[in-house]
């Protein structure tokens, strides 16, 4: 014990943490060496975030102890953690959107001149940090005007700026694209060279093996194993995570694209800086991917299809008939469904139950003849969502806000599947979802396609697009740069198209 | 709307308005049931005599001070002020004095020293304590006349509950004190079972009374209310508890003599009330203000008399079943 604590920067020993009705951590241990990248892996709800929140003083653990830098610590709040050399990039973006970037970076530790804030120093220091990290964001711009990925980069820069001995990154790449992921990896390498340790949580297997030195795997709130990354393969990690073999990452394709179902012509958004002249076709039983760099307006295209944005021109034809989706209601009525990109702001009803979150878009189905809702049907459909999506929850009545991020996402997908849509729009549907669940979602997508639905899926994960779709529409700077056949394309071709405009 | 659009000085009636001198008036609270009659009397009296600019101070003294500023800015030749808070008179006098504008206070009396300090300040109204004294006399008279019936426990003492208006309100304080003091002065022993504020509000009075009836039941021998609104609220509660049917009875008194209360007096559910003479308060106020605005002596051409405090006194009147017509006439 004592000899290991001389080599380890952080030791979390036998941590136990209970929530009402949930044993989130059951005797978990984690040991991190200085200057190493330590990956923390596990399915959704395994307890990764909870463990990190215990370290960071957000939660207080019920049992166990933490040794940091040789001393026993138990941070009462985040301030203490930060002051003692622990910083964290949180899984859910934690920013004050109404304020500007530098206000957010220095929140809790503003540089001062006398009793006043030293705005100039704040600006210069921010600029310096951004420069050293190669980030090009104006420190004075308001956070609410940034894209999700820019916000994420600001969070990363902020965590780095504390000059901590250890930085926790809880799914930092869930809203980043390839280029930015590589950017992050360069930052991590540099930190490592400065002897900073990183705890890295991610569901992206490729990243883990590429970046980490060691991997700790958790399952159901329990510690499973810690191994050196070199000695591991993706399959082994997956096996340890899910407790069984998962021979392939993508299910066998069983869908057969049939006749034309959706024809989108010359779609142009009302907002000038948005997309223009986007056209494509979708067949029954086809899975169309949308690729592109961050800011290429993929999201805005599907939002427009779903009636959330105004168009100046363009038509949407469904089964040969022009449809007008001026609002989500109309879109839903016309058989569209959209799993949005930002789960927290446009997806979940955090305080409300899983049941509520499952059925909200499908209410008409539960009306009995008397006009009242049938509790039985509601319960049945909720159970269908929980079972078929393998949602990890104590009960139907649990509020969705207390589920792990990945499990929340599964409920949202389930919500839309309940509406039995003809056209299913998925915006980064597997963001933050573990490999096991991803496989299940791919299977579901396949199955839906096989049933004759048309599916459009935005993804920033190239392997996913290549593994699941039939064709891929590549967006570049608001324009459709081209459509490629998945079977015959390559990552390089897609990247080239994405950079076309 | 029954308010004063004929004379309240919208600038629309320029031709006529310019000819007549402007009198700026504030009412402490427009919808006070008593003041609404004073207001109407003022309107009537002002017709073709002055351009009356009426303001609603919404029971807020700070607002009233501001309205005085506005009225002065609009060129009022005299002011008729129904104070919210009688002790704020000095501030208004200071403002008026600076512009040499006469002030007629009405209905709520300022300190004598304030009136004495400005030769162009007068008062029209009652004496605040008078309603309390008269209510006390009414209670004493009724008690003496019906002792065998009212004194339910035959201890010779008058056990009462009292519904008070808004605490700190000059009328509420004066009525509470002087009504009881007067009863005692008449040599009647009293015992207070309960006293609580119902904020002039009938609903709150009903609810307080509900609790008191539940608690004291037949021990209550008299219900005294600072105004008729609360008296009516108490009656609603008493009726629910079976009073006023058969031989179950409770004497109730109020102040204001509003029409609704007159009905209750008529039907025997209220012993009596105290009438504020709205007509004459309103008329006297305008008479003085109009004279002042025209630069004449305030009493010029009127029958009013000033007492040693530069005040025109309009008396309160006790109203019972015997003289109910006096009350009725007040609302003609």
């Amino acid at each position: 014990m004592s000899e290991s604590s001389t080599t380890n920067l952080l030791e979390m020993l036998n941590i136990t943490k209970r929530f009402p009705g949930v044993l989130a951590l059951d005797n978990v241990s984690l040991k991190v060496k200085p200057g190493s990248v330590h990956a923390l892996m596990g399915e959704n709800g395994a307890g990764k975030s909870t463990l990190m929140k215990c370290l960071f003083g957000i939660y207080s653990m019920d049992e166990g102890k933490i040794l940091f830098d040789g001393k026993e610590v138990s941070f009462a709040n985040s301030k203490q953690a930060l002051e003692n050399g622990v910083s964290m990039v949180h899984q859910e973006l934690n920013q004050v959107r109404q304020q500007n970037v530098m206000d957010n970076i220095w929140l809790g530790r503003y540089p001062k001149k006398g009793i006043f804030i030293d705005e100039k120093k704040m600006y210069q220091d921010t600029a310096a940090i951004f420069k050293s990290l190669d980030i090009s964001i104006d420190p004075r711009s308001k956070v609410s005007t940034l894209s999700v990925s820019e916000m994420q980069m600001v969070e990363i820069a902020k965590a780095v700026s504390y000059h901590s001995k250890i930085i926790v990154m809880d799914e930092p790449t869930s809203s980043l694209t390839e280029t930015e992921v590589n950017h992050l990896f360069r930052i991590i390498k540099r930190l490592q060279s400065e002897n900073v340790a990183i705890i890295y949580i991610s569901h992206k297997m490729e990243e883990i093996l590429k970046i980490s030195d060691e991997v700790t795997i958790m399952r159901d709130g329990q510690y499973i194993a810690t191994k050196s990354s070199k000695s591991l393969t993706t399959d082994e990690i997956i096996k340890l995570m899910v407790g069984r073999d998962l021979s392939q990452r993508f299910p066998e394709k069983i869908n057969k694209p049939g006749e034309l179902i959706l024809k989108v012509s010359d779609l142009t958004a009302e907002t000038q800086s948005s997309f223009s002249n986007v056209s494509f076709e979708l067949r029954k039983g086809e899975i169309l991917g949308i690729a592109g760099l961050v800011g290429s307006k993929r999201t805005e295209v599907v939002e427009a299809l779903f009636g959330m944005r105004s168009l100046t021109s363009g038509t949407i034809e469904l089964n040969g008939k022009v449809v007008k989706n001026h609002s989500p209601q109309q879109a839903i009525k016309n058989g569209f469904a959209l799993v949005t990109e930002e789960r927290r702001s446009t997806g979940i009803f955090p305080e409300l139950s899983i049941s509520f979150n499952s059925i909200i878009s499908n209410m008409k189905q539960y009306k009995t003849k008397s006009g009242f809702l049938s509790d039985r049907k509601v319960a049945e459909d909720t159970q269908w969502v929980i079972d078929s999506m393998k949602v990890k929850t104590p009960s139907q009545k649990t509020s969705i806000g207390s589920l792990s991020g990945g499990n929340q996402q599964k409920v949202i997908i389930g919500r839309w599947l309940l509406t039995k849509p003809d056209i299913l729009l998925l915006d980064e549907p597997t963001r933050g979802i573990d490999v096991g669940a991803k496989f299940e979602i791919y299977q579901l997508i396949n199955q839906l396609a096989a049933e004759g639905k048309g599916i459009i899926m935005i993804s920033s994960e190239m392997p996913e697009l290549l593994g699941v779709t039939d064709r891929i529409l590549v967006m570049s700077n608001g324009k459709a740069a081209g459509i490629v056949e998945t079977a015959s394309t390559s990552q390089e071709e897609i990247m080239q198209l994405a950079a076309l405009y | 709307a029954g308010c004063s659009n004929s004379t309240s000085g919208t600038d629309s009636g320029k031709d006529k308005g310019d000819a007549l001198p402007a009198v700026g008036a504030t009412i402490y609270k427009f919808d006070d049931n008593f003041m609404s009659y004073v207001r109407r009397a003022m309107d009537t009296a002002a017709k073709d005599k002055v351009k009356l600019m009426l303001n609603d101070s919404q029971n807020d003294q700070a607002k009233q001070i501001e309205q005085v500023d506005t009225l002065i800015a609009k060129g009022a030749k005299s002011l008729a002020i129904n104070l919210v808070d009688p002790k704020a008179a000095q501030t208004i006098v200071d403002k008026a004095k600076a512009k040499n504008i006469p002030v007629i206070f009405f209905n709520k009396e300022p300190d004598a020293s304030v009136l004495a300090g400005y030769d162009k300040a007068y008062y029209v109204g009652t004496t605040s304590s008078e309603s309390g004294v008269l209510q006390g006399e009414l209670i004493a008279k009724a008690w003496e006349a019906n002792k065998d019936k009212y004194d339910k426990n035959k201890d010779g003492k008058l056990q009462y509950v009292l519904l008070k208006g808004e605490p700190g309100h000059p009328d509420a304080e004066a009525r509470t004190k002087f009504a009881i003091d007067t009863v005692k002065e008449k040599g009647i022993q009293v015992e207070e079972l309960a006293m609580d504020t119902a904020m002039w509000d009938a609903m709150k009075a009903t609810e307080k009374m509900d609790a008191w009836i539940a608690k004291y039941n037949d021990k209550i021998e008299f219900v005294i209310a600072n105004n008729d609104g609360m008296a009516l609220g108490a009656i609603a509660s008493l009726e629910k508890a079976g009073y006023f049917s058969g031989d179950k009875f409770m004497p109730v008194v109020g102040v204001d003599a509003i029409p609704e209360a007159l009905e209750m007096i008529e039907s025997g559910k209220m012993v009596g009330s105290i009438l504020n003479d709205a007509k004459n308060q309103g008329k006297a106020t305008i008479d003085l203000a109009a004279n002042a605005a025209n630069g004449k002596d305030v009493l010029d051409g009127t029958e009013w008399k000033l007492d040693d405090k530069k005040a025109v006194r309009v008396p309160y009147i006790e109203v019972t079943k015997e003289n109910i017509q006096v009350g009725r006439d007040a609302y003609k």
Partner: protein
Amino acid sequence: MNTQASKKSSFSKWLVDNVIYVVLILLVVGIVSASPDFLSMTNLINILSQSSSRIIIALGVAGILITAGTDLSAGRMVGLAAVISASMLQAGDYAYRMYPNLPELPLIVPIVIAMAATGLIAALNGVIVAKFHVPPFIATLGMMIGVYGLTSIYFDRPPYGAQPIGGLSKAFTTFAQRGIKIGQYEFPYLIFYAIVVSLIIWVIWNKTQLGKNMYAIGGNPEAAKVSGVNVARNLIIIYTIAGLLYGLTGTLEAGRVGSATNNTGNMYELDAIAACVVGGVSLSGGIGTVPGVITGVLIFQVINYGLAFLGVSPYIQFIVKGAIIIVAVAFDMRKHAKKK
């Protein structure tokens, strides 16, 4: 050992989840121990009947709060409805009728007219909030001021000016003041009206699409929109239902006191909102139950009635009342204790 621990913790969890009911019971126990004769059927009936119209208005306000809105105009609408219904329900032989020539109407007519008036105004609130995106606080503040002006104009009119509208017809006062005799006690009809309204509202909140939409809008309006909820329409309906309830409350209030003025209902909204919050409705929307709201109202009414019954001096009453409200909610908040 283990089961015992979990039993204990499940009891304490139950306790924490149901603090408001515990608070209500503690309050009653406190008052009874100060004055044992508080424990009587009469007091119970009084408290229930005094709570009745407050429950009705509170349920209206609660629906709006659950959508993350608020309604400052509720009290003034109660006043408008009170004045309208009273003016049409004066006894034929009353000397100071507002409409001297109006025949005595069947009860239902003025009630419907009053409810229609407040329903319409509340719908306007809904439109302003939903279509013009005015924050509910401001929309209903403006409406509160405006409705008071409107009510005053209706009220302060010839022939009698700003006088309480009284002399209500027997049928009306019976409807609002009398009750059903059971044994030696008379249970006011008011209590039954409140029960019926509560049941209807419970069904709407729990068994209809409108109810689910209401929670969705309050829980996350953006998500609601994306989920296909017609936010604007649902909001307008919810405000309108609240308006209808205010109208009913106003009518009952006029009947209960036997008269109405333009000040009837003044500040009721504050009591109603406070009762809702004490009863567990979240001001940030998405959370609230019918039993919670009812308990909130009862807690307030037990405090009001209890303090008066104990004969606590008026000024002290204010202090005690303020303190109880804060302490009760502070206890309740332990269920959301932040650091876990």
